[in-house]
C-alpha cells in the first residue's frame, strides 16, 4: 500500500466518523436558527438566529446570561484547582513509594463505585449542617473532587515523567515540590490538558449536584437552568425553542476552552530534555 492510498484510507475513516459525530450537533445548530426551535430536517428554513438569540438572552430579564456567568464561575475555578489537586495526588501515587499507597489508590476507586444518586441526600445534609446549602460553595466545593483525574494523572505521570529526570533534579538540589512544578508539570502537559477538559465538561454539565443544593434561581448554572426551562415546556411552550438555542449557546465555552488549549497537546516533549 502506498503512502497516498494509506493517507486516503485514513482520511476516509476520519470523514465518516466526523459525519457520525457532527450530524446531531449540526441538527442542533440548524434547529436553533429556526423559529420556535421547531427543527425538522437538516437544512435551514426561515433563518432567524439573531431573533432567537435575542429571545434567549432577554427572557426573564436576562436570567440566561446570569446562568452562563454562574457556570463559568463554578467551572473554571473548580476545574483548574481540581485538576491541580488530582494531578498532584496522581503524581505522588505514580512517582513515590509510601505506606498505604495502593490502599489509597483503591479507596479512591472505591469512591467512584457508589452511584452519585445515593450520595445526594448525605451531601445535602452535610452542607445543611454547615448552613451552606443553597450557596455557591455547595456546588463549587464538591466539584473540586475528580477521582478519575487522579487515575489518569497516575498513568500519565508514570509514563511521561522519567525517574532519571527527577533524580537529576534532586542532584541539582531542587526540592520535590519544586521539581513537580518546574519539570513534571511541563512533561505532563498534554495529560493535564486532557484531565482539565474532562473535568471542565463534567462540572459544566453536572446538574444533579446543583439541583439538590440550589433553590435560588440566580445561583443556577446553565444546565440546571435549561433543565428547569425544559420542565416548564408544558405550561410555557415557547421555552422549547429557548432550550435548544440556549443549549447551542452553552456549547460555546467548551469550544473556547478547547481551542485555546490546543497548543498544549504536543508530542515528543519527554525525550528531548533528558539529553
Amino acid at each position: 500500500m502506498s503512502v497516498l492510498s494509506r493517507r486516503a484510507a485514513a482520511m476516509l475513516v476520519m470523514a465518516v466518523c466526523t459525519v457520525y459525530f457532527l450530524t446531531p450537533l449540526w441538527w442542533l445548530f440548524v434547529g436553533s436558527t429556526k423559529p420556535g426551535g421547531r427543527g425538522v430536517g437538516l437544512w435551514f428554513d426561515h433563518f432567524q438566529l439573531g431573533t432567537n438569540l435575542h429571545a434567549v438572552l432577554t427572557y426573564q430579564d436576562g436570567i440566561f446570561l446570569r446562568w452562563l456567568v454562574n457556570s463559568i464561575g463554578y467551572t473554571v475555578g473548580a476545574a483548574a484547582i481540581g485538576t491541580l489537586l488530582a494531578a498532584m495526588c496522581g503524581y505522588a501515587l505514580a512517582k513515590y513509594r509510601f505506606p498505604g499507597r495502593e490502599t489509597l489508590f483503591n479507596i479512591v476507586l472505591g469512591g467512584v463505585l457508589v452511584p452519585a444518586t445515593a450520595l445526594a441526600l448525605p451531601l445535602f445534609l452535610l452542607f445543611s449542617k454547615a448552613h451552606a446549602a443553597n450557596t455557591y460553595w455547595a456546588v463549587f466545593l464538591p466539584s473540586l473532587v475528580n477521582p478519575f483525574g487522579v487515575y489518569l494523572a497516575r498513568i500519565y505521570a508514570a509514563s511521561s515523567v522519567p525517574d532519571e529526570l527527577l533524580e537529576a533534579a534532586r542532584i541539582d538540589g531542587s526540592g520535590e515540590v519544586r521539581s513537580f512544578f518546574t519539570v513534571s508539570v511541563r512533561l505532563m502537559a498534554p495529560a493535564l490538558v486532557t484531565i482539565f477538559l474532562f473535568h471542565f465538561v463534567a462540572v459544566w454539565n453536572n446538574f444533579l449536584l446543583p439541583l439538590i443544593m440550589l433553590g435560588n434561581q440566580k445561583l443556577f448554572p446553565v444546565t440546571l437552568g435549561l433543565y428547569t426551562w425544559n420542565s416548564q415546556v408544558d405550561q410555557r411552550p415557547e421555552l422549547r425553542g429557548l432550550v435548544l438555542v440556549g443549549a447551542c449557546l452553552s456549547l460555546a465555552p467548551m469550544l473556547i476552552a478547547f481551542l485555546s488549549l490546543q497548543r498544549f497537546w504536543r508530542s515528543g516533549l519527554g525525550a528531548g530534555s533528558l539529553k
Partner: protein
Amino acid sequence: MRRTLAILLLSTLSITACSSNSSSGDSSTGAAAAGCAPANGPVTLSFTSWVPDIQKVVDIWNQANPNIQVKVQTGPNGNGGTYQNFFNQLKAGNAPDLGQIEYDALPSFRVQDGLMDLGTCSDVTAAKDKFVDWTWSQVSFGEQGHVYAVPQDAGPMALFYRKDLFEKNNIKVPTTWQEYADAAVKVKAAGGYITNFSTGDPNQFAGFAWQAGAHWFTNDGTNWTVSLTDPATSKVAAYWQDLIDKKLVSAVPPWTDEWNNAYNTDKDWTWVSAVWGANTISSGAPKTSGKWAVAPMPQWTAGDQAAGDWGGSSTAVFKGSKHPYEAAKFALWLNTSTEALTALNKAASLYPAAKAGATLPALTEGVPFYGNQKIYDVFSAASAQVKPDFTWGPTMTQTYADAGDGFKAAASGTGTLLKALTDAQASTIQTLKSQSIPVKG
C-alpha cells in the same frame, strides 16, 4: 491512617445524628408554632414553587405587605427533582416555609410528617367554602377540622375534539363512552385515530377511574387499603384495552414533538384531557387553530354528570415553619384573591381551585383556537362534577412508575392494562410495607 478513619467515623455519625434529630426534634418547633399566632415584627417567608413567572405574582404581594416579605425559590417541577429536594430539606431541618405540592403528592408528604396542620389557623378553616368541594377534601384528607394545604389550581377533564373533522365525516360528538368507542371505529375508517392512549400518563388514567367512581386508596386511620383493580377501574381498563387491541388508538409517547405532530397533522382527533390541555393543543398543533371544540367528558351512563381530574397543585406550609400564621395568610391570598388568581392565570394558565376563579375575565371569554367557544364554561361545570372522595396513596411516585411501566408493556402488546394495574397494586403494597405503613393485604 487510623486517625483519618476515626475522623471519618465521627463525621459519619454526626451526620446520622443530625438527621435523626431533625425528625424527632420537630416537635419542639412544632409546638411553638402550633398556635398559629401572628408574629411581632417583620417576617420573611421562603416559598418554593415551579409555576413559571411566580415571582411576578409574589411581587404584587411583597409590594402591598412590607412586613411579610416572601422570597421565591424555584427549580424543576415536583417529580423532576423538587419533591426529592423537599424531602431532603425536611430531613435536614431547612425546608422552606411554603411549597407547591400537587394533590397526588400530598399524602406522601403527610406520611413523612412534612405538612403543618393549618386547622388551628381560623382564617384557613374559614376559607373552606371559597374552594370547590373536592379540592378541599384533597388538602384535608377528609378530616374535619384539619387542613394541610391551600388548594391552588385544578385540572377538571373534558373532551377536546376536532369539530371540523367530526362534522365533515358525519360523526356525532360522543356523550357516552359507548358512543366514543363507536366513533373510534368511524374515525379509523376515515383514516385517523380517535385519540392517543398515553402510556406515560397513569394520572390521566387515574382521572378516568376517578370519573368512573373508583377508589384506589382508602384509609380508615388504622390501615390503608390499596385497590387498583376495583370494579370501576377494571371497567375502565377493559374499555381502553379493547380500543388498544382493536388498534383504534395511537400509542405515541406524550409530551413529545411526535405527539404534537400527530395532532398537528390530523392523525388524532380528540383528547380527553384537563383544562390546561387547551394550551398544550394550541401550542403543539398550531395548524389546527379554530377547528377544535370542547364538550363534556363522555359518561358511562347516558345522562350522568361526572368528571375526573388530572393534576392540580396546592400551597402547603411545611412543618418547622416558624411563621405559620403569616405563611397561611400568604397562601390564602395567593389562592383566593382576584389579583393573585388573575396573575397566576396570566403567568401560567392556571385554572383556579377557588370558586371565584370561574368568574375571572380571562376565563369567561371565547377562545379563538377553539372556534371562539367559551371553553372554560365546560370546565367550570366539570369541576363541580368531580367526585370529592378520591384519595391518593402515600407512595404515588412508586405507583405511577409501576403502572406506567405496565401500561407501556400493554401498549407494545406484551401485557394488558389490567395486568399492569394488578402488578402495580402488588408492588404498591410491598412499597408501603417496606416503609412500615400499615396496609391490608
